[in-house]
């Protein structure tokens, strides 16, 4: 589904890349974890495959089409869904409106379907009473579940998550990881999680470590 071909990235000095010549493949129905220490470039890698930035070298292909061909805005709207460590919800909205807004922007087949949005939230433990409150009145775990629900409500085949459990306690972490696994296996999406927590990575189907400018497959 998603391929990187000779991917490379650097900030100022081309001679000191974060990573270079990366060739990876990601498929639907699978979950992937990318491990690495801080500053190794794993979040930058995620921003490239999420279409938030452009690679300095190489290319990224979605179903054999370059992201440049698809267009980054178009790619972000229809092909990829992103979950952030800081949840990044619309703080002036309720969970329900967060979902409805995202569904409207991305133009999913369920756009405007309030019942579908409520059901998606309910599946993640956000009941009707919480669904209409302002998101700022929810706990961190609940907010992250809303963020995941936003991903699940969309039609995008690729789900990328940047340290999705970074702000969560153990229980919530486990619940969130289980949700990602369901998204991958039940909904047949490709889930790529960037994390520095080995326990989280261990629960994914595949693990990669970014070290010394290269990706190493762990399992």
């Amino acid at each position, binding site marked *: 589904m998603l391929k990187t071909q000779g991917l490379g990235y650097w900030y100022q000095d081309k001679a000191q890349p974060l990573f270079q010549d990366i060739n990876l493949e990601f498929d639907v129905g699978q979950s992937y974890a990318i491990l690495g220490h801080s500053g190794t470039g794993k*979040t*930058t890698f*995620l*921003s490239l495959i*999420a279409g*938030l*930035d452009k690679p300095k070298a190489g290319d990224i292909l979605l179903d054999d089409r370059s992201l440049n061909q698809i267009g980054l*805005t*178009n*790619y*972000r*709207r*229809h092909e990829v869904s*992103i979950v*952030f460590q800081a949840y*990044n*919800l*619309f*703080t*002036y*909205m309720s969970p329900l*409106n967060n979902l409805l*807004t*995202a569904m*409207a*922007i*991305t133009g999913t087949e369920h756009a405007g379907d309030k019942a579908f949005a409520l059901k998606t939230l309910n599946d993640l433990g956000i009941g009707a009473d919480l669904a209409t409150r*302002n998101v700022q009145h929810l706990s961190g775990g609940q907010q992250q579940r809303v963020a995941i629900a936003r991903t699940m409500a969309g039609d995008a085949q690729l789900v990328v998550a*940047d340290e999705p459990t970074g702000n969560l306690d153990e229980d919530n972490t486990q619940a969130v990881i289980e949700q990602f696994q369901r998204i991958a296996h039940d909904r047949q999406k490709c889930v790529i999680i960037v994390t520095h927590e080995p326990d989280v990575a261990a629960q994914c189907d595949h693990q990669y470590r970014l070290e010394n400018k290269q990706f190493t497959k762990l399992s």
Partner: protein
Amino acid sequence: MNFFKRAWLNVWAKKGRSVLLILVSSAILMFVLAGLLIRSAAVKATAQAKADVGATVTLSANRQAAFKQMQNSSSSSSKSSRPKMTLTPVKLSDAAKIASLDNISSYNVTSSTSVNAKSYDTVATSSGLSGGGSGGPGGMKSSTSTGDTQIDGVTSTSLATAFSSKQSKITKGRGITTADKNTNHVVIEKDLASQNKLTVGDTITVKETAGSKDKVKLKIVGIYKASATSSSSAGPMSTDPANTMYTSYTLANTFKGSKYAGTADSVTFNVSNPAKISSVKAAGKKLINTSKYALSTDDSSYQTVKAAMSNVASFANKIVWLVAIAGTIILALIVILMIRERRFEIGVLLSLGEARWKIVAQFFTEMLMVIVVAVAIAGAGGQFVGNQLGSQLVSQSTTTTQTTSVTGQHGGSGTPGGGMKGGNGGPSNLGQNAGSKTAKTDLDVSVSAVNLAELGGFGLAITFLSIMIASGGILRLEPKKVLIS
């Protein structure tokens, strides 16, 4: 259009911020509206001034030409006889021709003379100058003695300066009108009436000072009160103002003598459009014998109002633009700060694949919602601010203009009080300014639908510019920098 919904949710969720924005926008728009109101009121007032104040063209004897003729005849004739300046009375037939010109709305015929009291006593002046017998030195060359009662013959008292400028007003009965032509009806002064216990309907007798010196009975149809400062007389030798009576010009002509029938001292034409006064004068000159008659114009009242209103309109214009520019800058700064605070939200929208123009449209819609409420508030409050500012501006501007005007006119030409040959010297310069009214320069500052539409336009423009200035950041924003730190 999802951005409409987002805009509404944001405005509603952040009520405190929205209220503050509404207050700031209202304050800005209130001053814009005040400026718009004053400007449109000044334009209206200037147009109204044309109708209210008007301007006049006066047809009278050509004194300058008559003086030259007198000088020529004195050099050619023997020195035994003293030369006389002969002023030709204005022919009413000439006046009728001029009255038929475009832009002449009405005209007032003036014919002054004096008679002697017979059945009543004139009011004596406090200066010790007895009213009896001392005719006014109006300059009119008289071939006979002057009387103690001033007769101001007019077409209508309402057109005479003293009445139109509110210096005199009818307190009982009525004024002289065109219906009093060829009648012996008279309007007398209140003091004269009370001194002689006269009232409306009574008859008084006067004695002509010219011609056959007949006694003539006059019927009082009205009593007027002259203001404390008003005087139709001129100079220390004049009669007391209370001894001035108003009659139809036909009766005044009768007192002067039969050869004055169909004539007048002067005729004042009211020009409906003061801007056309020059063309009216030029057209009028073609209809008269300029060696005998002169046409003089007076649009000073109109010019005073026009100058005052121009100052106000110009100042209001500056207010509008100054406030609009300052408002745009203030709002733009607020919006820039507001957008900087919302970088994260913009990043999320961009990560969802939202088009940048739709994000800008969301902010514009939010500001538009604020501006709509602000326009309503400003519409209610702008009237008050406009009234206060307008009256202050007018009083300052009018005072300045009138001071300049008075200074400029100091020592200016007097009205030709020159007597007509055979006529009785009258002290009056009545009628020269008949029709000129006191400049009314109140501003009618009221909010109309047009004003609100203009304000809405300004509000829209200010909002649009503010958002455009502030949106530079949105268009350059990279989601990675915002979302992934």
